[in-house]
């Protein structure tokens, strides 16, 4: 019997720091809700809006797989491993924080706001050597199909992380039916609607809604409008 959890967009916590507006699906920073801690290994799903010319100053991380997907604008990243890069729409970035790193992230434009998804997954091992990876996925994105942008395997498509997780992203026309099998039956899958209206295993979802499912074999998605959808498959324990 499938199990599900629904996180409507307007049920997310909002952290408004002026320069940063962060819509947080799970407990983060000062927002603590014991009912919203995690979905399996998925611990953070922040939908962040950063004003032009602003950003996150240098700060540390450890023991976390941190994935950034820029939706609009650009994000300039610098870290203590001497990586300097701008992440743009169509790219995915991962940092395995492991034993500890420092980094900073700034909007790469003085005027135009940047929008990005900040996603944290618990690692499957603590205290790994920190690593950084950034890759374009949009060149592989085929219309009306999910494309893998992250996996646990260095030789597989997309970036890789220290967790048995897979991310898929797709852009779809209205009126399609898509079946998406899970990599592992014991995993759960979290559907995040970047934009559009869809139905997932009978559940209606709209912009920025999240829907977690586990104890299932596959997803059945119907697109009610044009839609952009992120799938996050993670271990549930």
């Amino acid at each position, binding site marked *: 019997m499938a199990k599900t959890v629904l996180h409507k967009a307007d049920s997310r916590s909002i952290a408004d720091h002026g320069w940063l507006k962060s819509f947080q699906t799970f*407990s*983060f*920073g*000062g927002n*603590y809700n*014991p009912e919203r*801690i995690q979905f399996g290994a998925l*611990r*953070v799903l922040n939908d962040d809006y950063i004003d032009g010319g602003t950003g996150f100053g240098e*700060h*540390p*991380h*450890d*023991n*976390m797989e941190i994935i950034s997907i820029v939706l609009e604008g650009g994000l300039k990243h610098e870290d203590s491993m001497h990586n300097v890069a701008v992440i743009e729409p169509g790219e995915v970035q991962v940092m395995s*924080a*492991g*034993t*500890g790193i*420092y980094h900073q992230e700034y909007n790469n434009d003085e005027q135009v706001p940047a929008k990005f998804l900040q996603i*944290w997954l*618990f*690692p499957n*091992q*603590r*205290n790994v050597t920190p690593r950084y990876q950034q890759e374009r996925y949009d060149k592989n994105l085929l219309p009306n199909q999910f494309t893998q942008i992250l996996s646990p395997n260095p030789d597989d498509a997309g970036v890789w992380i220290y967790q048995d997780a897979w991310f898929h992203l797709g852009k779809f026309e209205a009126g399609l039916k898509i079946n998406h099998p899970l990599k592992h039956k014991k995993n759960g899958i979290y559907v995040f609607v970047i934009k559009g209206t869809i139905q997932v295993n009978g559940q209606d979802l709209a912009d920025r809604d999240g829907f977690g499912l586990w104890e299932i074999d596959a997803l059945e998605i119907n697109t009610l409008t044009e839609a952009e959808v992120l799938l996050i498959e993670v271990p549930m324990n």
Partner: protein
Amino acid sequence: MKKKEILVMCCHPGILETLIRLIEKSGEFKATPAATAEEVLNRFSTGAFDLVLMGAGLAPEAEKELERDLHKINPETPVIYHFGGGSGLLFAEIKQGLDQT
């Protein structure tokens, strides 16, 4: 009201300093730093802590061994593993840990 006492272990000096600063800044908790397993055991043996927060740096076996040693001294004090290294998850972890007491 007495502040809850948290013993924070982290081998990374910068992250340990950050965690202590964030916890103290909250006003709700008092944080004591420890940079090694030996230091954790020494402080835990002589202090009264409500929670031990296990940060980065020890090998997995060493973390488990330290947790076992702490529980031998006081099995009532929760030992929780910190993830993230900054403010993001810190207070949720502390509140979840204190809920166990």
